[in-house]
């Protein structure tokens, strides 16, 4: 029952959101098979603070970045993609 602070709509129940994966740079077409495979399928899945993309499909429908502690489920920060903010948005 996370309460997720959407950077645009404010705190909302997690049922309004879709998890959209870990943010990863997209390799160029020339990337070798192993690099491309890692991009598609490998997950960092860290224990502790974890950067992830969330999609507010039940609200503003915006994508945003969230840092969540996978041990405590504490949300450390959220911000719009491209705005690499430090503090809580």
């Amino acid at each position, binding site marked *: 029952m996370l309460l997720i602070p959407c950077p*645009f*709509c*404010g*705190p*909302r*129940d997690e*049922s*309004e959101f879709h998890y959209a994966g870990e943010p990863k740079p997209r390799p160029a077409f020339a990337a070798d098979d192993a690099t491309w495979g890692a991009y598609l399928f490998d997950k960092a899945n860290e224990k502790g603070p974890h950067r992830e993309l969330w999609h507010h*499909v*039940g*609200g*503003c*429908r*915006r994508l945003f970045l969230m840092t969540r502690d996978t041990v405590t489920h504490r949300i450390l920060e959220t911000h719009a993609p491209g705005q690499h903010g430090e503090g809580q948005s």
Partner: protein
Amino acid sequence: MPELAARGFAADLPPAITPTSVRLRALTPSAQLWLSGDPTDAGFVAGVDRVLGALPPVGETAGQDPLLLWQAPDRWLVVSETRRGGELAATLRQALTGVHAAVSDTTDGQALFEIAGPDARRLLGQGSTFDLDPLRFGPGRGAVTLFAGLRVSLYCLEPDRLRLHGEVASARFLWDWLTTAASAYA
């Protein structure tokens, strides 16, 4: 040329027997538009203001008719009960010529319901996790959130009068939810 007759979504809804503490109405506004644009673009803001008589709001509603409901940092729902959707969309597009913006007529795509009375917020609370506390969601406030699992635009007109827009194909479902939830206060 005889025009094809119109039949709004409300014609298919069964009548509601609701208690006095909460009144439900299905409404068919004459215009509903999706409007997208950059609120930091002076041209966009001026064009919107010129046609709609209000500046695009952030996180709340603006104007009365037309009413602008904030949907996202660059998207609004424009609602009017007096202007026709096609005409209003055309006027708006005209005013935004040369501006990166988008206007779509969704007049028939959204159902509109009004929930009014002292139990209005309790009724909505049955289907939504959104914070409906009147201190934080008073007149002029709006939000896009889930009700009964569906994405809706919810806004407050008066302390005890709220409205929600939802996809028209789910109008029967929303009505079923609203009328059933209302029976708790009979």
